[in-house]
């Protein structure tokens, strides 16, 4: 089996995880994660053909509730924890650059 820790790229993975790392941090993460991947890579040695993966215990039947409208989370309470809102919505920096941001 391919030693995947050799293919781990801290830079690519950090980009996927949306975590900014400077070059020194990237270097550290590269080393640390290679070590950890070697450790968890022990699971490569087992014969697992025909074994069904197990994703966790869940109740055998999906609980249903009656289709009635229930009050949801109170908006002002929810927004209170947000870093920036207009009182009704979350506000975020513009997606497509500054000049498009005037109308949100």
């Amino acid at each position, binding site marked *: *089996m391919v030693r*995947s820790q050799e293919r*781990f790229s*801290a830079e690519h*993975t*950090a980009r*996927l*995880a*949306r*975590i*900014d*790392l400077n070059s020194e941090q990237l270097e550290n*993460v590269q080393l*640390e*994660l290679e*070590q*950890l*991947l070697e*450790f*968890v*890579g*022990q*699971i*490569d040695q*087992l014969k*697992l053909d025909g*074994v*069904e*993966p*197990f*994703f*966790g*215990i*869940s*109740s055998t039947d*999906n*609980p249903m*509730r009656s289709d009635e409208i229930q009050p949801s*989370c*109170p908006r002002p*309470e*929810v927004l*209170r*924890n*947000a*870093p*920036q809102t207009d009182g009704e919505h*979350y506000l*975020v*920096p*513009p*997606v497509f*650059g*500054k000049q498009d941001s005037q109308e949100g």
Partner: protein
Amino acid sequence: MDLSSFSAYQLLELLNQQELSSVDCVDYFLKQIENRNPDLNAFAALAAESALEQAQAIDRRRQKGEAVGPLAGLPVAVKDGICTQGIRTTAGSRMLEQFVPFYNATAVQRLLEADAILIGKTMMDEFGMGSSTENPHYGNTRNPWDLQRVPGGSSGGSAAAIAGGMAPLALGSDTGGSIRQPAAFCGLTGLKPTYGRVSRYGLIAYASSLEQIGPLAWTAQDAALMLRVCAGQDACDSTSATRAVDDYASEIESPINGMRIGICRDQLGKGLAPEIESAIEQAVSVLESLGATFVDITLPNSSHAVPAYYVIAPCEASANLARFDGVRYTKRADSTELDQMYSKTRSDYFGQEVKRRILLGTFALSSGYYDQYYIRASKIRRLIQQDFDRALNEVDVILGPTTPSTAFKIGQWVDDPLSMYLADVYTVAANLAGLPAISIAGGVDSNDLPIGLQLQGRPFGEAALLRVAHQFQSQTDFHTRRPN
């Protein structure tokens, strides 16, 4: 009166007989916190004012002869990863430094409905990711038995709060051992319930398929009281089980003669401190003297549990922690560009271990590696569950160690994640299989540190675990020792 030498059950007796008022009880523990918390750093937030108000109300109700709940007037501490309405809940992260939930976790709500009194929130490893409660943002929590040592983690604050005489009962959560390992390090009883026994609503998610909220206490009897209140189906958590909750407090009184207890000899010896091994042998004698029969069992795949866990838990963490993006939860890094805002926020406000696990999980789930890591680990999870199924067909519960060593020194593993992960070697399997497991004080090592023994049981077999634990405690006094 030195209330910290009492169990929660004994305190409740005093409260119910009105030999102790709830106000005096709460006041006692608040004073203890004032005196001891500066050294121990077990509490992340206090709710002194509301606790005293609640205590007054309960005292009045008792005086009037009104009905009160099963935990009426008893102070409880709650791990800071569990949401408490109006009380800051950080999960040990800078990301949530100012987060104030507008609702209670179901487990907390049920404690309050049982008239327990919330006195404060307890320290933890960031988002539960750790085994030592050495928190880079909020400081190290110290073990009341030896201030140079860790209390375990991630529910280390809850364990130190009880062992330090600052609370009689606490809630923790356990994703890979986070209730049982601190209970072991601090000489307490700590129970991880069966997956689905306690609602996870309001538990800030780390690895959703593995974790459960559960009690930490001095005794099995106390844990039984708390679990009875918190357990049961909850409309807000579709994974909570519909099965009726047992009457643990009465079930633990039944003798254990005729009970079959499994012991996995392969797990003893290598890597396990000899003093812990001899504590297990002594526990075998105690339980045999109570009429239990010991049976050798094997768990052939247990050696793969830690690597499988450190694939599955980080995978789930990488998904669960995606919600912390600078939009909804208090912290945002300055940036004029959206994508940069996400990544800068996550970089600035997550600690190193959290980033490490998110990156590990992100990689293991990424294109080309998913089958090799996540699926293979999930297949191992199946084998581990089948091992337990087979073993628990033969025996009622399984006895073994909770931890490979007693409490280690602060700083000992902080730069060595792999060694830290191996602190979970005996505990993660129960999370992978979804089974209940309890740690009880079962010895003392040559440094006068508590030794924890673990009992693992069948799905929804909490009553059997608590029963064995309670009967063991009826014959031993490790659970009555207190740190100086």
